[in-house]
């Protein structure tokens, strides 16, 4: 693809002038990423789809506020905020503020009521192959993480954002991002180890 950033800037400018079709090109470009993040944070497909759609609608309405920075990050900020709104609405956990989750000890890791079958995945059991099973295990362990920690892990490790970017997207301080990331990684490691015996040999060998 030639000079994508130029094309993207042209699309953004057209969208700012009210050309919805130009904005929809951006939608198609980023919708997988947006849905991925939304789904992994919310762990529910329907909620993730709603949040993704709302995020794009919100982005189009606010396109005038885009000041030429990184469009992907700008869009991701909207998606993350939409996820926060959805999480607060659902109130899956007692703490209304996701930032209050830090310091809950083991509550960070296991949420018994959320524990899903090992083989549960968005692909369905029948599609489970070695890689698929592994992915399912990871997704399952992610699901068991508290949202405040899960958001950080999804942004930093799954999506590859830097500490600073993750802090900006989540509205959490840099120090808290680092702290939560370390604890989330340890928790996921423990969860994966727990299921290691059911994993393919490759993983177990690497782990042991």
């Amino acid at each position: 693809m030639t000079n994508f950033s130029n094309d993207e800037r042209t699309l953004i400018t057209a969208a700012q002038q009210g050309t919805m079709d130009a904005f929809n090109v951006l939608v198609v470009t980023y919708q997988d990423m947006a849905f991925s993040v939304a789904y992994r944070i919310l762990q529910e497909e329907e909620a993730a789809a709603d949040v993704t759609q709302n995020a794009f609608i919100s982005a189009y309405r606010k396109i005038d506020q885009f000041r030429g920075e990184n469009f992907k990050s700008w869009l991701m900020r909207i998606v993350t905020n939409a996820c926060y709104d959805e999480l607060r609405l659902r109130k899956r956990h007692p703490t209304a503020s996701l930032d209050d989750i830090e310091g809950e000890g083991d509550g960070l890791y296991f949420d018994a009521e959320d524990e899903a079958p090992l083989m549960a995945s968005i692909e369905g059991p029948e599609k489970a192959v070695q890689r698929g099973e592994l992915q399912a295990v990871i997704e399952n362990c992610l699901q068991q993480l508290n949202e405040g920690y899960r958001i950080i892990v999804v942004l930093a490790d799954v999506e590859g954002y830097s500490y600073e970017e993750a802090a900006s997207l989540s509205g959490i301080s840099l120090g808290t991002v680092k702290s939560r990331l370390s604890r989330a990684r340890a928790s996921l490691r423990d969860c994966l180890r727990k299921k290691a015996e059911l994993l393919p040999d490759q993983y177990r060998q690497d782990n042991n």
Partner: protein
Amino acid sequence: MSVNRIPPEDLLALSAYLDGALPPPERITLEQRLAVEPTLQAELESLRETVALLKSLPRLKAPRDFSLTPAMLGQTSKGSGGGAAPSPKIISIARFNRWQLASAASLAASIMLVLIGLFAGFNAAENENLPSSNAELDGLGATGNEIGFTDAAGAAETTPVLSLTDAQIFSTETQMATSRQPGSLPGVVGTQNVPIATPAPALDEASAPVAPPAPGQPSETNGDTEAIPQDNGQDDEPAEGESALDTFDASATQDLQAAGASNGQTTTGSGNGGANAPTAIPTTLNYAATTSTPPPTPTVTPTRTLAQTTPTPAQEAILMASLEADQERDEDIEKSGAAEGDENQDFEVTPLLIIGLIGAIVSAGAMTYNTWRKR
């Protein structure tokens, strides 16, 4: 194998080390430890694998096309985030209308007051009976009475008691509302000011509250109305006010009755200065002498709207404006020390006119402010 297996600071250091985010001094220290601490090393490796697995997660495919349609912009799909713009717009529009409506209403009422004041001013010039009434009141310091006399022209005195019934008086009181509250007396001398005080503050506020407070006031008045016959309405008034009242009683009684009669005859709520003058006078007198006279007829203003038991919002505004007008008159008189009611002039700038102008300015200002705010 729990999260707390190693110290949190070590966990933090390992995690940062994995990302290459550990500053050189700490990094060197950690690497030295890793070389001699197998547990720490194992921890590092397990964390490294975990991060690798997370990074290996494939990007999910969007379950559908999330491209926008014009219909979407009018509403949001189920869930949060996005923009629920229609509702906020509707709310803001409603708020806009409500404030603008209140501002426009008070502006209209203020304009009416101006017209009424003008009319009253012209009528006041015709009245010549003030001196006697004023003379009676001077000693009492009831400047408000003078004003009342001015407006009413000698009608109050000349017109025999209009046979104002208690019912009429009480109905008037309902319209008076706030005026009955002694505690709200402005610094003006005389009891008659009491009724005026309460409405005045309400009027002075932004135009918006004009309508809401008005309905509330009648209820207040009703409560006070019941207390009036018991002659306790002015217990809370300032001492000087009470003394003025006492001084009032005797001389005011007759005037009160006269006023009461004229009050009864007042039919229009427009606060006609001339027509209301008689009633106005008695009203103040009545109020002042409330302690001694059973018939409440408190606020002067009610007189103007006496005929109407259920004033419309516009009339409520006028009523309040009238009350405020009376207060203003009292204040003006006290300041100048001279009765503004002197009908030496061909046209009298009645306080009502002043109030109307002030109200118009305030209303216009409120409308402008609201419009500016909406931008």
